[in-house]
């Protein structure tokens, strides 16, 4: 059975916590076969945070780990959309009805 890990990030994915988050993310990859990221509580993301997600995704791909973001907060969704990265991560994105424009 695949070792499935789940990591929820509650703090903002910003430069202020970048160091911790990097360790957290890379650490979570250790020994996992499937890693699920729950970003539903992440209120903010900046370039540093985005970079880390990209790094994690790439690193996961290198190690043959399936990394997926299972829940997006609105901020994460908007940023990924803006940067045209939704396809890169390839995760299903749930858009709440009331947010649809």
């Amino acid at each position: 059975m695949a070792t499935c890990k789940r990591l929820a990030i509650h703090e903002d994915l910003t430069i202020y916590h970048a160091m911790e988050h990097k360790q957290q993310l890379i650490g979570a990859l250790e020994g996992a076969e499937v890693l699920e990221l729950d970003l539903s509580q992440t209120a903010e993301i900046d370039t540093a945070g985005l970079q880390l997600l990209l790094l994690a995704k790439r690193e996961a791909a290198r190690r043959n780990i399936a990394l997926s973001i299972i829940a997006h907060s609105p901020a994460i969704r908007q940023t990924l959309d803006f940067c045209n990265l939704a396809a890169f991560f390839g995760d299903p994105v749930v858009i709440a009805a009331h947010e649809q424009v």
Partner: protein
Amino acid sequence: MDELTSVFIQEGREQLQTMETGLLELEQNPDDRDNINGIFRAAHTIKGASGVIECGFIESFMHKVENVLDRLRNNEISVSADLTGLLLRCCDHLGLLMDVLENGSKEPEDEAKTNGNALQSELAAYTSNAGSPTPPGQVIEAESEVHASGGGVVDTDSWHISVRFGPDVLRGGMDPLSFLHFLASLGEIVALETIPDAIPSAAEMDPESCYLGFEIRLQTRSSKADIERVFDFCRDDCELHILPPNSKVSEYQKLIKELPEDDMRLGEILVRCGALTQTELEEGLLSQKQADQPVSPQNQDASPLQQPLGEILVDHKVVRKEVVDAAVSKQTQISEKKAVEARLIRVQADKLDQLIDLVGELVIAGASTNLLATRSRQSDLIESTSILTRLVENIRDSALQLRMVQIGETFNRFNRVVRDVSREIGKEIDLVITGAETELDKTVVEKIGDPLMHLVRNSMDHGIEAADIREEKGKPRRGRVELKAYHDSGSIVIEVIDDGGGLPRNKILAKAIDRGLVQPGQSLSDQEIINLIWEPGFSTAEQVTNLSGRGVGMDVVRRNIQSLRGNCEVSSTEGEGTTFTIRLPLTLAIIDGFLVGVGKSAYVIPLDMVIECIELKENTADRDFLNLRGEVLPFVRLREMFEMSGTRPPRENIVVVQYAGQKAGIVVDHLMGEFQTVIKPLSSIFRHLRGIGGSTILGSGEVALILDVHALIQRNADLGAREHNFSRPDTTDFNA
């Protein structure tokens, strides 16, 4: 409201003012290029800033305005009265939108929206009949049409922006994403690709370094300089390439070569974001391999950024030389402007108030120390405290100076008012401003606007005659309203002068009798008749116009001015014009006072008003006037006026004060000399108290009341008038 928004509103209003002034000037000099550029810049700044604070309704509105200005700037449309009028109305609307933002509303009211939409459709009329848009498909051969900023609407092609952020951008506190969001405010981002290739392996990656790059297709009417400016903050720290719309394929090839990523990968990215077609890419890369093989290493050695991008582009005839020159000079202008701004510091008003408050306390404490030193009779101590006192005085003066602003800005607002009103009422009126550099306290400046507005409108509406009538009377056709400010012995005087018909005495008198303000048959001097216009509910306009005569009378003007411890007067010569004179204290905070005593209490009289002090002779004991070198000097006895107990001392003194040309005496027990005072306003429960202007604290810790000389004189005059059986309505009963 967050800080950013309030800064935006403040600066936005300044820009708006610049725009409005510029537009008014444009009406006079339609060919002034600098001016048009200035207006454009102001509009552009507002738009950009509104994007930063994510205020969509202002941004989209300003976008439309900017489009029209841009065409104006490029000589595609010409200046006309209709256009400036429309743009001025747009300024008004923008002011309204800023109010909406300031009030914290999400969206403007429906009425404002309708208004905005109407303006936008009017604006659209100026953009729609544009010259035919640059036809697509001429990309390669039509070099002269390559640069499209400001040209016809480019629908099919976009700017290509390629940016690689340097590793230290994040540490510098900047967030590249926010630059991109800002970029989106310039126009529409058609496509955007994130380039994460530079991120090293997990072990080496420093989460605080930035490794990202972006390829962006942007559709905008903004100029290249505008786009570059988005990245101003991180200019030294990022690699930025901007290709104008319709760039040649070879330019993209060059770009591909200069960027750090693998050529093939980059080519794909460009294809993905729509800059190139697959065929173009393949052909390009092929030809590059063949032709550039020997050249390319050399190219890589020479850092691509050594040669300014502009020059590269000019070399390749992508951008016309003059466009680059214009962009460069614009950038220089901007940096010069920044240098000017750097000499100004924005300080929050309450911090300044706090400082002045403290200086006030310092003045009081200084006075107390001085008193003690004098009592101690130690000459060293007296000397050192006197130096201290002088320094405190200097500090006080400089602190007060901080609050002083020039009245010019307030005056300049009236250019617009006069323009609009004179059109509305069909009179030709010029506004003349003198003494715009006169400085006065900021609070006064803020509050003087409304009364002035009323007076100016009155002058235009009632004062200045229609052009035909003026010609008949032998006056120049164009009427003239003058705003004038100057300093006069401790107060500032503002005059509103018109060369109109003057105040019609007969009409005023008739009206006053009609209203029961004056008894028929009562004889009044000319000046007394004119002064009747200050009475509540008095308006001589025979027809109620849109401008004045709305029931808000001159009495409200006067009350507003009085609340600033000022007063106003009117003088008028029939047929020649009217002058309103407003007299205001220079500052509301600290005055030089003259300390007097009655019984055990101390009072302060503003020193500017004191002319002389004389001894009260015994024989005048029961009268309330005396003969001062042949003049009648009415006086008040403070002891009686304030109903104080105790007996009069054997020798009383009179302080002779003058205010606005009137002299009066104030009888006090003893004189205590000059004294610097910080005015502490009385609490609002005392606002109906007449004769007291405020309070202050003496060095000894006692409280002294500051006399409101004007009110005292007035009261004295009123009492006299009543005794002479003049009927005067009680002004305090009037409700606005």
